Structures are given as structure tokens and as C-alpha cells.
């Protein structure tokens, strides 16, 4: 059994195009949910989304590289390179063969799907770009990261909707702990803000028209976001040997399926994943001071998640801090779990909890401490990061402040 540590972070988010500016925005309680720019506003009912604005593809890729890279792969590669640079690691020789590239993605190359089929159906064009298929496939971000970063170990995509990144990181953690790999570049990426995609979300009638207010009274729903977060995980002995700055330690992973409903959240499934993660980490509920909640802002999720925390943690649920960073960046689906683990890692490292913004006041069914509206300074030893997906798929990671 190896200890598993985080040594590098990368992110492309509505609050900034790197992990440092993302974290700075979260601490400030900045709202990254803004008027939609990438789709003509008259074509949508939804007027605000968590878009990654000002992402300049030409800055990161050459004209020759770009045609094959969907926006989701671009996000993934940029975030992965940042994480690797942050970790200060180079993947040469044998290490490259024992480094995984495992990424979560909910839908894959949505922009390519939308644009290609629009050409055929609406524009009546006779053909689509020849590499449409390898561009849109759900494993494209994972494969492109493996190629751009020279990672030759296990590589695949994990698809579990809103829990994809958490499952991806959890699997990487397990492989590292067991010793089957020595490092992993892992996380998630999503770029699902397209006309067709957002019309699909509008049809579900779950999005708030203005603000995302998780756990708040008068909350009106979730809001779709996009982005990527990638991290470098290593075994503790490797990280120490090369003198790496260890940001936090991953100590547990729990997962479960509700086996009930394709969209409705289930308290039982959530509880089993939370308890599973704590057992895996050999922690009691009382050892945890912070939970980065799934906290989508829908009536059903936030009520059910609150109930699950009370069931899983008992009275201690009232003593710990819970926050939803989705209030600031929206729900980036397959990237969400990684974006949230980045926030969790930084909370452990700095002793600062990012707030739940747009909070108006307590809801009778959501009566815990959600760190409303302003960041909080407090020492945290251990934290959970929750992801509960459509399909009834639950994944929870446990991270710990690294003390050497």
C-alpha cells in the first residue's frame, strides 16, 4: 500500500484559465455565471451560463494542431500541461510507462457533434470534416493528454455524467495505492455549451434563470458550466524522493449506485458512498471538518444531500463546514468533481474554505452550515469531495492535509 499525494494542479474555468486564478476567484466569492456569449441569446431561454470566456485556442495550439481538437480536448490539454508544470515533474523513460492519463468526461466532443451534424442537417452540406469521429469520441481528451504529455501507462475516459472526474481520480488513486502505477495525470474536462446541448438542458427544466444558489432558500436550480481540472498524483515516496511540494494527500474513495432512478437523487446511495469513502480512509465522520458538496442548486439535490450528510455523519453534520463551489462556476458535469477537488486541496493547504455564494438564507430542509457568501479561514485536517450523478452514480473522495 502506497500513500498517494497531489503535487500539481491545472484548471481552465469561468473564473480564470489556471488553477491559481480559479482558486483566487473562489476565495473572493466571484460569480463566474454570466450572460451567454457563445450562442446567440435570442436562440436560448437560458440567458446565463458558466462559460469559459476569452479562451484563446490560437495561444495554446498551432493551426495544424487545432482542427482535430474539440474544445473539450483543448481544455484538457491546457489544464494537464499546467498541472505537470506545477508539479515540476518530467515523464521520461520508465516513469512515462507507469503514468496513467485517466480523465472524466460527461459527453465528449459536444461542439464537434453539434457543428458537424448541423452542417449535414441544417446547412445541407454534403460532407463533414474527415476526423470528425476521433475528434468527438468521449476518450479524445484522455487520449490527447496522453499524447501531448507523453504518458504511456493506462489511459481511458471515465463517463459517469456529473461524477466522471471523481470516478477518474478515484480509480487513479486506487491504482497508485496498489502500486500498479507510479503517477497519474487525472481529472476531468467538459465543453458542453452548444446550442443543441443547452436546448437539451432547457428541456429538463432544471436550470435557474439567474443565479446558482445551492442550499439557499428560494433556489431555482442548477446552471451549466464548462472547463477542466487536471492534477498530478504520485506515490508519496516518489514525490518525496524528488523533493516535490506536496499539496495534499488523497486517502479514501467510495462509490455506489442508487439502482433506482435515472435523474432523481437518492439519500441511500449518497450515504453508502460517503460511508464507503470514510471507511476506505479509515476515518470517522468526526475527523472531517469540510465537505465540498455536490450542491447543484436544485431543490432535490440539495435537500437529499443535506439529509444524506446527517444520516452518514450524525450530529457531526452540524459541526462541519459545507460549501458548493458550483455557486460560482456552475455545473461543469464531467469536469465538476476535479474542479471541486482542486478547491478542496487548496482549502486543506491554505486553511480557507471557498463560500457558497448567492445564499439568501436557510431553507427548512437545508439547515447546515454552508459557509454562506464569504470565504472562511479555518484549519482543516480532512475533507470530503462529493459527486452525485445522473444515472444514480455516486463518488466521494477523502483528502487530508499533508503533514509529512
Amino acid at each position, binding site marked *: 500500500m502506497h500513500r498517494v499525494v497531489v503535487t500539481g494542479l491545472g484548471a481552465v474555468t469561468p473564473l480564470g484559465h489556471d488553477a491559481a486564478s480559479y482558486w483566487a476567484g473562489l476565495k473572493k466569492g466571484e460569480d463566474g455565471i454570466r450572460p451567454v456569449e457563445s450562442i446567440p441569446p435570442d436562440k436560448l431561454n437560458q440567458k446565463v451560463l458558466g462559460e469559459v470566456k476569452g479562451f484563446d485556442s490560437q495561444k495554446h495550439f498551432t493551426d495544424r494542431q487545432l*482542427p*482535430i481538437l474539440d474544445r473539450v480536448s483543448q481544455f484538457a490539454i491546457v489544464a494537464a500541461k499546467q498541472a505537470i508544470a506545477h508539479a515540476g515533474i518530467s515523464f521520461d523513460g520508465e516513469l512515462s510507462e507507469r503514468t496513467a492519463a485517466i480523465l472524466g468526461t460527461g459527453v465528449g466532443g459536444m461542439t464537434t457533434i453539434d457543428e458537424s451534424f448541423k452542417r449535414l442537417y441544417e446547412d445541407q452540406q*454534403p*460532407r463533414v*470534416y*474527415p*476526423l470528425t469521429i476521433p475528434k468527438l469520441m468521449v476518450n479524445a481528451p484522455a487520449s490527447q493528454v496522453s499524447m501531448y504529455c507523453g504518458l504511456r501507462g493506462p489511459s481511458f475516459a471515465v463517463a459517469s455524467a456529473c461524477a466522471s472526474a471523481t470516478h477518474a481520480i478515484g480509480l487513479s488513486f486506487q491504482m497508485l495505492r496498489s502500486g500498479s502505477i507510479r503517477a497519474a495525470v487525472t481529472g476531468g474536462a467538459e465543453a458542453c455549451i452548444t446550442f443543441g446541448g443547452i436546448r437539451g438542458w432547457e428541456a429538463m427544466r432544471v436550470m435557474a434563470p439567474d443565479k446558482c444558489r445551492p442550499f439557499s432558500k428560494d433556489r431555482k436550480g442548477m446552471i451549466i458550466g464548462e472547463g477542466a481540472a487536471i492534477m498530478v498524483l504520485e506515490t508519496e515516496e516518489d514525490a518525496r524522493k524528488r523533493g516535490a511540494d506536496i499539496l495534499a494527500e488523497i486517502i479514501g474513495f467510495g462509490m455506489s449506485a442508487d439502482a433506482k432512478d435515472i435523474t432523481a437523487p437518492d439519500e441511500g446511495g449518497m450515504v453508502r458512498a460517503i460511508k464507503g469513502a470514510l471507511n476506505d480512509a479509515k476515518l470517522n465522520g468526526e475527523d472531517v471538518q469540510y465537505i465540498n458538496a455536490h450542491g447543484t442548486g436544485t431543490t432535490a439535490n440539495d435537500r437529499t444531500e443535506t439529509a444524506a450528510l446527517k444520516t452518514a455523519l450524525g450530529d457531526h453534520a452540524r459541526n462541519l463546514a459545507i460549501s458548493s463551489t458550483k455557486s460560482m462556476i456552475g455545473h461543469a458535469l464531467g469536469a465538476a468533481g476535479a474542479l471541486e477537488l482542486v478547491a478542496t486541496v487548496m482549502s486543506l493547504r491554505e486553511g480557507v474554505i471557498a463560500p457558497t455564494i448567492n445564499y439568501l438564507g436557510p431553507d427548512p430542509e437545508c439547515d447546515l452550515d454552508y459557509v454562506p457568501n464569504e470565504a472562511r479561514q479555518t484549519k482543516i485536517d480532512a475533507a470530503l469531495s462529493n459527486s452525485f450523478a445522473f444515472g444514480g452514480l455516486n463518488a466521494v473522495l477523502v483528502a487530508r492535509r499533508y503533514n509529512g
Partner: protein
Amino acid sequence: MTDVAQDVIAIIKKKARVDRSEIGMDDKLLDLGLESLDALELVFDIEEKFNIEIPVNANDANIGGFETVGDVVREVEKLIATKA
């Protein structure tokens, strides 16, 4: 050189991986460093430009049986004539 030839050469020049100031009808596609995925993009760009369908199978040893730039130009001219 015909207009078609000039247009085809301009498209090929964009995809070529070797730096050539001049590309002529006798240049071999392989010598221009066109890899198989480049060739598919090349065919796509030419089809878009002239609104034709070039029957190509990527499994063929040399894509579409084209060896030289001239082979491509002649095929494109033939397909345009057939269409007209």
C-alpha cells in the same frame, strides 16, 4: 498552369510538412511529408473547394492511388468535367 492546378497546389502547400517555396505537378505527395491523416484533410479541403466527391479509401497504400501532385490535379479536373 490551370486555375484548378493552382488551387489544388495552394491547398497541398498548406498541408505539406516540408518547407517548399515551389510545389510542382511532378512532386510526389510522400516527399511533401503528407501523412495519412493529412491526406484525408487534403481530400476534404479539395472536395469543399470544388464541390466534388473524390472516391478515396484510406486503406489504400497511397491514398486514392495518387502519387504526384499532378495525379491529384488531373483527377480533380476529371471530376469537375464529369459534374458539368
